[in-house]
């Protein structure tokens, strides 16, 4: 099981901030992203979102494993 977190415009489009996903085999974040869009429909801007795995920025090619938390981080606008 992995946790997927969405924020800001992505959460708004998806209508949810948190999705749990059963994983059979290790997958890349890119695969998770494709899966998400199949499930939720097109999420505008997700292509541009940064990725964090377990609260650290990570590359799309990183393989995720059970227990990981993957966050899709749209362009930030704090301050």
């Amino acid at each position, binding site marked *: 099981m992995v946790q997927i977190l969405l924020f*800001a415009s992505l959460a*708004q489009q998806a209508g949810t901030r948190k999705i749990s996903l059963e994983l059979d085999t290790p997958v890349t974040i890119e695969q998770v992203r494709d899966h998400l869009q199949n499930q939720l429909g097109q999420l*505008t801007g997700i292509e541009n979102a940064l990725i964090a795995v377990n609260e*650290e920025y990570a590359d799309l090619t990183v393989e995720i494993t059970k227990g990981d938390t993957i966050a899709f981080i749209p362009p*930030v*606008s*704090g*301050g």
Partner: protein
Amino acid sequence: MKLFNITNELINNQEVIDKVIHHNAGAVSVFIGTVREMTGEKQTRYLEYEAYVPMAEKQLEKIGDEIQEKWPSAKTAITHRIGTLQISDVAVTIAVSTPHRQDAFEASRYAIERIKEIVPIWKKEHYSDGEEWIGNQKGTEKYPEGRPERIEK
């Protein structure tokens, strides 16, 4: 006493300042971001901020570490508020103390620039005529290399 935090409460500026004052500080540069009513022709009614809280606090700490490396005698504290903010409310308070003033100004400015680059906090403007997530949410601009400049893994 947490030097770097995200809060739902009103920010107490003096509390943030107190975290960095010490006997060898001679200068404190404080940056306070407040909610502005007019941006060009657009009128803001209120703002909403949201954050990926645990990661945002880690990223604020990372900014503190970067400052420590660049200005070794600096001491930094940052509080960012989330939730609904009204005009003139304080969204973020940064305090940096150093022995001499030039470093304090530079480090404080560095901190606010970095917040806008690497800290997962988002602002939604509620204008008098609509609402908008700020920060290129539409993907019309791409980050170089797919990530904000200067993010280090």
